């Protein structure tokens, strides 16, 4: 491509950044209003617009064994995956996290523990009462992944 053609192409594409902003922001609004992504993230300019920020969400991971529900305290090495799952708990991301958790459970498991049947993950957001500021949890997404599932 000659220098003149590059210049002409770049001049024609001058509105591309503005179009990308509109496209990404619109997609983020649709995703946040119909799915579990936090409005704070994803390029839609919803930061500082709602109390549903990723840092106010929380996640429970439970190891399900024969007749037992064991709430897991996840290690620091899974912190980034947990943070991503809180921000955007899609089924795909929760499944990937469940696999990581299962691997960690198997690595650190007591050999005498009952066999692991599944990992269950739930992500909650918090809503606040306007007058008392009292918080109430509300599930955003959850998934139960059988152990050993590929």
């Amino acid at each position, binding site marked *: 491509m000659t220098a003149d053609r*590059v*210049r*002409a*192409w*770049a*001049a024609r*594409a*001058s*509105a*591309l*950044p*503005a179009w*990308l*902003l*509109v496209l*990404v*922001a619109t997609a983020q*609004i649709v995703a*946040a*209003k119909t799915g579990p*992504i936090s*409005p*704070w*993230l*994803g*390029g*839609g*300019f*919803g*930061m*500082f*617009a*709602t*109390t*549903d920020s*990723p840092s*106010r969400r*929380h996640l*429970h991971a439970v190891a399900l064994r024969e007749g037992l529900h064991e709430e897991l305290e996840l290690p620091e090495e899974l912190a980034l995956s947990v*943070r*991503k799952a809180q*921000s*955007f708990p899609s089924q795909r991301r929760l499944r990937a996290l469940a696999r990581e958790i299962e691997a960690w459970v198997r690595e650190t498991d007591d050999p005498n523990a009952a066999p692991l049947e599944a990992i269950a993950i739930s992500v*909650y957001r*918090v*809503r*606040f*009462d*306007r007058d*008392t*500021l*009292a*918080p*109430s*949890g509300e*599930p955003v997404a959850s998934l139960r992944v059988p152990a050993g599932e590929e």
Partner: protein
Amino acid sequence: MSAGLLRSIRAELAAMPRAELALRLLLVALLFQPVGLRWLRPLFVAVAALGLLSPRALRSPALWIGLSALAIVRLFSGWPNQDNHAFLLAWWLLAAALAALAGEPDRMLAWNGRRLIGLAFAFATLWKLVLSPDFVDGTFFRVSLVDDSRFEDFTRLAAGLDADQLDELHALVREHQDGVFVPRPDLPRPPVRLFAVADLLTASTLAVETAVAVAFLAPLGTWISRARHLLLALFCATTYALAPVAGFGWLLLSMGVAQCEPEKERTRLVYLVAFLVVLFATRWPWLRLLS
């Protein structure tokens, strides 16, 4: 610093083409506040430093294509945890790359700067006014003032709370809940003044963000469009003095100054002062000293 030196700096800033001034401010911002994951930061800093040290590199499309690529890598590598300004930075760097490639930096950056600011504020207003009921009814600021540590000094000063009261309210909003909250008699009661401050912040945020969106999207020459520089500088100087997110403020100021021709010397000065206000307000705990 001598008066002569100040005069010569002022003359140089006044004579600088608007795109060059905007891009230099952006590079300074990237040096003050490197962005991206740990491995990306040195790359951003190195390319930004090169652009500031070499006038030839500053005008080279390669530098801006490189920075745009880094910004896009940053978006993907951090997905989904990237804030809005990571996206806005990527769009602005892409505009700089296209402007350098087209050989029309002044015109193209002025056009994109105006549109990007207007659209970003229009979407922010849409979220706050229409899509988030808990913003418009005041809940967002009522909770954030006691929960977000970035507002702590402001809350103590403006709402007249002492450290213990703030801790009690912070513990309340951070109480772990998986279901509906069951009230109990020992709950701390938020003071009326806290709610008044929060409601004032809600109304003023909505007013100024709507005004900035309209001013930057309105046709050039209208009275609201002529007020856009003042509105943006006011927004940055006041907002980022309270909420220390300097990178976003500097990014907006770089986009704003891209629209100031050399003859608008005073307007350029307003932007530079706003840049310094954001720098000092986010690095010097002036609210803590007052509270």
